[in-house]
């Protein structure tokens, strides 16, 4: 059974110190509100797993929540470095973090293997690169067919303890419609032991059932559902609000030192009690600036048989 919860309860019920946590979403639908709640509740020793750590893991690392990061691209997309990530790796500030590193396809293939319960998934990557030398999880198997390929790289399943993912809309049972860039969200949800689904809006079951091909996450894999509009800001929700690119550019300065980052966390994370207060602080003007004009899809006919 899926429970509809407030964010604070969803996090306190599901997350524990030391767990392997996956916050899903490739650029799109990143669960910032959930990440901030993890910071507020003061978790420690997490293994933060994400293809793109993005600002949210930079913030979690700066807040001291992480003891390890598993990733494939640790940059501020289109801007540059993740400075808190680099401080942790290069200088151990605020603490050392262990790294486990893949390319994008390697990391999403690990989730895919987890989602399918396969012992490994093969991929045509890593030959000629230095990854296998530094990551023992990347191995090679012999090709049993005589087709010119002798061996191929494989990666093992990744099954996070908790995946926190977002979607635009879901019903109370956690059946979720996603659109726009879906990235690795679905694989993360199927691979994880526990799944927290956060949505822009909870809708009637009939909305979801009107278009079952869009239900990429079924309620049967979801443990709890949180309704929290604008919960992805400064990331975005396709059709609901734009990516706040200014915020991504500003982060480069905000995060310049550990101290300046702490100040920001004090104000924007610890200084609010949840997403609603964060949005109030952000102001309507900024939200309005992020509002796209609407652009509805041409519906399909499922037929009433």
């Amino acid at each position, binding site marked *: 059974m899926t429970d509809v919860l407030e964010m604070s309860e969803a996090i306190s019920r599901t997350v524990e110190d030391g767990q392997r946590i996956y916050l899903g979403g*490739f*650029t*799109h639908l990143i669960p910032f509100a959930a990440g901030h709640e993890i910071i507020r509740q003061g978790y420690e020793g997490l293994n933060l797993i994400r*293809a*793109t750590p993005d600002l949210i893991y930079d913030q979690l690392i700066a807040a001291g929540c992480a003891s390890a990061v598993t*990733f*494939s*691209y*640790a*940059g501020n*997309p*289109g*801007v540059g*470095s*993740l400075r808190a*990530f*680099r401080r942790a*790796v*290069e200088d151990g500030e605020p603490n050392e973090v262990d790294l486990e*590193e*893949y*390319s*994008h*396809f*390697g990391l*999403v*293939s690990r989730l*895919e293997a987890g989602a399918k319960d396969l012992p490994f998934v093969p*991929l*045509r*990557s*890593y*030959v*000629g*690169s*230095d*990854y296998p030398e*530094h990551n023992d999880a990347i191995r090679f198997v012999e090709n049993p067919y005589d087709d*010119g*390929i*002798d061996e191929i790289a494989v990666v093992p399943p990744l099954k996070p303890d908790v995946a926190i993912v977002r979607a635009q809309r879901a019903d109370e049972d956690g059946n979720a419609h996603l*659109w*726009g*860039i*879906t*990235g*690795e*969200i*679905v*694989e993360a949800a199927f691979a994880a032991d526990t799944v927290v689904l956060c949505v822009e809006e909870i809708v009637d079951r009939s909305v979801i059932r009107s278009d079952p091909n869009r239900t990429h996450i079924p309620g049967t894999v979801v443990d709890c559902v949180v309704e929290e509009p604008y919960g992805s800001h400064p990331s*975005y929700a*396709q059709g609901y609000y*734009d*990516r706040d*690119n200014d915020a*991504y*550019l500003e982060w480069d300065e905000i995060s310049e030192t550990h101290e300046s980052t702490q100040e920001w966390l004090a104000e924007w994370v610890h200084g609010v009690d949840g997403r609603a207060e964060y949005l109030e602080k952000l102001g309507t003007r900024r939200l309005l600036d992020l509002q*796209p004009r609407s*652009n509805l899809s041409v519906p399909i006919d499922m037929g009433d048989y």
Partner: protein
Amino acid sequence: MRAYTDTELMISRAAQELENGDTTLVGVGVPNLACNLAKRTHAPDLEMIYESGTIGSDPSRLPLSIGDPVLATNARSVVPMTKGFGYYLQAGRIDVGFLGGAQIDRWGNINSTVIGEYDDPAVRLPGSGGACEIASNTDRTIIIAPHSERRFPAEVDFVTSPGYVGGRENRESLGLRGGPEAVITDKAVMRFDDDGEMIVASLHPNVSKTDVRNATGWDVQFSADLGETRTPTDDEIDLIRNDLDPDGIYTGGDGD
């Protein structure tokens, strides 16, 4: 002829590498501008794919990241990463990929992972993203980077994205597709000889062989028919400044 910036030259030169009908995996920054410039000039049928899974994007404005919503709206298709990397990239459906890097060696091997020791790095870089896959699975890669001895060492600290590894034969025997086609810097355009070694194909205006030698970490060779790099046309400069990057986010303010 109008004045242009180094970046504008690189954008325009990179655009020339694209043929009409190519399918290209677009990165942010210069590659994004180059692809959009090519699409608006000689390659209207260029198919732009982003590693976020947007297929045939037709962005109404320049994205900051490779996952901005403008890349999904009005796209031909949007697919999950497993599919973008599996059904498109790994399947060999992408002709051209753009790569950058902190270090590039004479075989076109690229490092975007660490400067120094992997386990105790002087500088921790973002890492591969999809670069390792792009380098392994496209028909040809275009590498774009500023030209300095630090960027072009004899050997990279970490091979993130394989070029010709230790030479063309080496790459082929590893089962890797294609390989680096061109390296475009702020000083020169370089290509790869029969062995897979990088050689200078053309020098930018006002750049000497010595300039390039001094900015390259090995004894770089020059093509027998070394020419001068094609410079951006007025139309291209207008398109870049007025349409593609009106706020000068990527092209900066160092021109004119």
